């Protein structure tokens, strides 16, 4: 039974792996037996994160690079693929957000968000597919957001980028499917992570969100790991182009913040 979830012998890349959901995804994929290359921009934080996992006996390596630099994206994937002779799993987790009312929003913010959240995953998918197609096997998981399937005010670039990533996921599912490479999206809702420190600090925000979620709470980062471990395993072999939302029921239900 557990064999179908085993990732033994496989090589994975998880971006944005030094903290938050990406860290938990890297841990889960490594725990399932894969060798995981953890990527992020900041080398120190990445080394720290990796050392924790190494101490737990997991097979992780680090590969620091800047996603906003296209050349670095291409080079990183090529280096990993050539070193290992394979690249089976790509988890595009890294992403950024920016809060700006539309009238005050800048084009540079738009470019920065779209570049990190859509252009970088595109480049990584493209390069990774060159290693996956010859093997006839691959698993790409793009990490979206509940905002890949619903809208929200003051985060126009972010919502656009995540909807765009969903479109790219479906396009790649269509194109890479014949080669045994699946491409799906894991779309997290509200999780208690560092990236959300700003909004969590706002009075009433945590409760405001919880009151709209059937499970009545935010997700904890570990809860993202198991989902991705499933999505990159053999157990998901006929799932392709799917947007798997992990949000405690937020986007599929209508819950009022009052008991009625």
């Amino acid at each position, binding site marked *: 039974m557990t064999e179908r979830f085993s990732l033994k012998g496989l090589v994975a890349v998880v971006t944005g792996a030094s903290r938050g959901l990406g860290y938990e995804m890297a841990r889960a994929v490594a725990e399932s037996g894969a060798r995981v290359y953890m990527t992020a921009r900041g080398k120190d934080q990445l080394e720290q994160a990796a050392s924790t996992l190494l101490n737990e006996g997991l097979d992780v390596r680090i590969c620091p690079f800047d996603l906003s630099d296209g050349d670095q994206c291409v080079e990183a994937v090529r280096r990993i693929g050539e070193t290992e002779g394979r690249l089976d799993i790509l988890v595009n987790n890294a992403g950024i957000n920016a809060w700006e009312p539309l009238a005050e929003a800048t084009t540079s913010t738009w470019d920065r968000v779209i570049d990190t959240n859509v252009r970088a995953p595109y480049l990584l998918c493209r390069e990774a597919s060159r290693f996956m197609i010859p093997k006839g096997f691959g698993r790409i998981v793009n990490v979206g957001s509940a905002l890949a399937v*619903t809208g929200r005010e003051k985060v126009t670039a972010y919502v656009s980028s995540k909807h765009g990533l969903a479109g790219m996921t479906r396009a790649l599912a269509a194109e890479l499917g014949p080669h045994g490479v699946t491409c799906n999206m894991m779309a997290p809702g509200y999780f208690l992570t560092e990236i959300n420190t700003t909004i969590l600090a706002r009075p009433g925000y945590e409760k405001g969100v919880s009151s709209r979620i059937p499970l009545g709470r935010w997700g904890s980062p570990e809860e993202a790991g198991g989902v991705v471990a499933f999505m990159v395993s053999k157990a998901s072999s006929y799932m392709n182009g799917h947007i798997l939302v992990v949000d405690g029921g937020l986007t599929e239900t209508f819950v009022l*913040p009052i008991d009625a």
Partner: protein
Amino acid sequence: MLELFSLKQKVAVITGASRGLGRTMAKGLAAAGAQVVLVARDEAKLNETRDDILAEGGQASVLALDLADEEAIRTGIRRIGGELGRIDICVNNAGVINWQPVLESDVEDFERIMDTNVKAAFVMSQECAAFMRAGSRGGRIVNIGSILSTLGRAKLHAYCASKSAIVGLTRSLAAELGRENITANVIAPGYFISDINASLTSRPGYIEAVSGVTPMERWGRAEELVGTLIYLASDASSFVTGQVIHVDGGIQATFTFQLAA
């Protein structure tokens, strides 16, 4: 009104036309030029709707029947369709709702809701589509869903099931009847001030709570369904079928909430 949106010469049948959103929509169809057949159980209330339409210079007739009675629907539609010579538009609006915690609910209640909200729409569509096909002029089936056609809500399992089912029914009708130029679409209203919601709107804080999660920050007004209905019933929508049109101020497409003051 633009010719494209005119319903002149058309016969439209609408259920649940005795009150609430159905009455407003029936008046809207008549104002757009359709001859409207008003269907519901309460004949006196249907007569009121008819009189309103006639007073405004429209055409309407009353077909009082119980939508839980399959034979009554079949007999009634065949008779009125025969008398008027055609049916072009079928609007399945009638619906019932009941709040019950799932563990305390009973099958009778579930069946009553499914029968009224889905089975009656199926029988109505079947009978009306027969006239649409016979006339070779195509037709329009418009089913009224809900925001709960695509979202779940606590204590409304039967209603949610019925309103999701109506989407499936609509898509299947679209698939099968498309070649006859008969389209089938769903209008999915959000929260509207209407009779069916009276028990909700009387609860303290309910109106404000719903407004707080709606981008337009208010409830809908019955007249705001009319434009979408006329569009889907008219020539303007001739290549639109199998769709769910949300008319909900943006609730379904967004995540919006107000922080407690």
